[in-house]
């Protein structure tokens, strides 16, 4: 348990809103494409014209069922919708269709990996479907705001954790885990910067050992993993400081300011948040037949945890390596393809996590946009394994592949980078080096063992790096004995 200021602990719950990647909206047939001109993807249902009615998109049910399975949760059937009532210009009906009792997913958990390698189980209270609101734009309208309802009606699933998170680091680990899952399931692209995944943090503090929960605040407007961590840290410290100064914590919603790294209360009226939930009369209870659930689950991909375990067992990778590679579905697929080609899981893992990652990060690329394909990387590794090139030379080849896009054999051929493995050639080089360096030879023979490295270096230089290091070592050893 993380302790703050020597005697405090933090109790954190996260509410994550995930925008589901459907073609059409939750309750209307308008498009959900990003970036359209204002109000060109808002049909009469999205505008809450008099007389319109909602009709449910079947795809969201499949997505919710898969998510429920990945969260080790129960799928509720029947599941019902409810109206959450409040007034805001980006909420055309004056109520949001959401779920109250019997959300589609309930009582799950997620095992997260902490920095020290241990795992912690965080309960997931529920995940429910609801519609997104529109957007308000504030510039350019002299004292007015412009409302764009394109986003209004886009399907969301809200994932609510139990208040079992106890530090900003744990919060980020949980958030990353959710992020990985939704991308794996292809139900969302989980882009926090674009708003397809949003995180609100409920934070309270209490003295270590206390059973009572402190008053909590809700912090919004955090749009990256880093900011989530910082915002929570700030809020914990702020609350501790307030209490220690003799003040009480007000239950309120706060907004995070990333530039100042502070949170401040939102300006809303009291009693403004009585949402008056009641069952949605325009929608009937949703029944999920067993056959539907079964068929949907059959379409589920292997999830990160399972994949990680398989990587450890099948490829003999370390837990750390397996974890990293399994976290992202595309990366995992890439790894397996490379290994399939190269037949060496260990080398494949190393190259992906090393050189390849470095290049991708440098150019801010995603694995899917890698300039070296999985097959090509696999072939490079094959050439190391079959001793065509040395590991050191391979790095040069890699760089040339990245910049030119050429195949590995083409580059080796063209640049003449083949390893020298011909024993007689190496022997002659070794002899030459020994002959050319009589002083060092004398010193070595009189006990300066360190000079062995000098001879290795000279042979490598002589061969322009192409001599097979293992063979050089062996032959040198023999020759020097003489």
């Amino acid at each position: 348990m993380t302790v703050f200021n020597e005697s405090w602990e933090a109790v954190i719950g996260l509410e994550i809103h995930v925008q589901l990647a459907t073609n059409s909206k939750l309750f209307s047939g308008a498009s959900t494409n990003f970036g359209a001109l204002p109000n060109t993807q808002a049909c009469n249902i999205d505008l809450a014209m008099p007389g319109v009615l909602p009709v449910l998109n079947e795809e969201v049910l499949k997505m919710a069922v898969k998510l429920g399975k990945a969260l080790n949760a129960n799928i509720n059937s029947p599941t019902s919708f409810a109206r959450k009532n409040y007034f805001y210009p980006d909420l055309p009906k004056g109520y949001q269709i959401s779920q109250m009792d019997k959300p589609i997913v309930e009582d799950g958990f997620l095992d997260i990996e902490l920095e020290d390698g241990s795992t912690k189980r965080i309960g997931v209270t529920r995940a429910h479907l609801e519609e997104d609101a529109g957007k308000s734009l504030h510039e350019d309208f002299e004292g007015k705001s412009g409302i764009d309802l394109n986003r209004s009606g886009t399907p969301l699933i809200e994932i609510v954790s139990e208040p079992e998170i106890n530090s900003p680091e744990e919060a980020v680990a949980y958030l990353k885990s959710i992020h990985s899952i939704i991308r794996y399931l292809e139900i969302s692209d989980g882009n926090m910067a674009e708003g397809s995944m949003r995180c609100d943090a409920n934070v309270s503090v209490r003295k270590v050992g206390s059973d009572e929960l402190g008053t909590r605040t809700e912090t919004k407007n955090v749009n990256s993993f880093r900011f989530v961590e910082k915002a929570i840290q700030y809020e914990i410290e702020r609350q501790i400081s307030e209490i220690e100064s003799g003040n009480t914590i007000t239950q309120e919603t706060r907004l995070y300011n990333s530039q100042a790294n502070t949170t401040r209360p939102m300006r809303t009226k009291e009693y403004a948040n009585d949402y008056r939930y009641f069952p949605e009369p325009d929608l009937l209870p949703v029944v999920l037949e067993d056959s539907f659930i079964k068929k949907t689950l059959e379409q589920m991909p292997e999830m990160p945890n399972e994949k990680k375990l398989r990587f450890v067992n099948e490829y003999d990778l370390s837990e750390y390596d397996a974890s990293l590679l399994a976290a992202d579905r595309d990366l995992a697929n890439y790894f397996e393809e490379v290994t399939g080609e190269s037949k060496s899981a260990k080398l494949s893992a190393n190259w992906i996590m090393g050189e390849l990652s470095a290049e991708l990060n440098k150019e801010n690329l995603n694995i899917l946009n890698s300039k070296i394909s999985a097959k090509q990387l696999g072939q490079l590794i094959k050439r190391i394994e079959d001793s065509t090139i040395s590991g050191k030379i391979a790095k040069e080849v890699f760089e040339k592949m990245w910049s030119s896009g050429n195949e590995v054999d083409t580059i080796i051929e063209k640049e003449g980078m083949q390893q020298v493995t011909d024993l007689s050639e190496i022997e002659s080089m070794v002899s030459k080096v020994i002959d050319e360096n009589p002083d060092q030879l004398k010193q070595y023979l009189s006990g300066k063992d360190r000079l062995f490295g000098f001879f290795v270096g000279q042979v490598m230089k002589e061969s322009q790096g192409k001599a097979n290091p293992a063979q050089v070592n062996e032959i040198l050893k023999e020759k020097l004995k003489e």
Partner: protein
Amino acid sequence: MALSDKELKEIAYLARINIDKDSFPSLKGELEQILDLFEKLNSAETNEVEAMSHPLNLSQPTRPDEVTEEDQREKLQETAPSVQSGLFLVPKVIEGED
């Protein structure tokens, strides 16, 4: 059933309906009369009874995930009180709700 002034003000705010001072007392009286009607429900025995949200005992149909609506912005904004650059204009929004 009595309705306090405070309660009525709160409800009016939740419903975003301004009630002018003059109408306040008579409205309060009318609402209290209607609330008296509700007393009748107290005598009903409903412990084991399931709430009825729909007269139909059916389940929700679904529709395929297809885009079926095209851009109708011009038509739908014809009757809008205030529009600019395709956006609905309202007095400046200061802070966000959920």
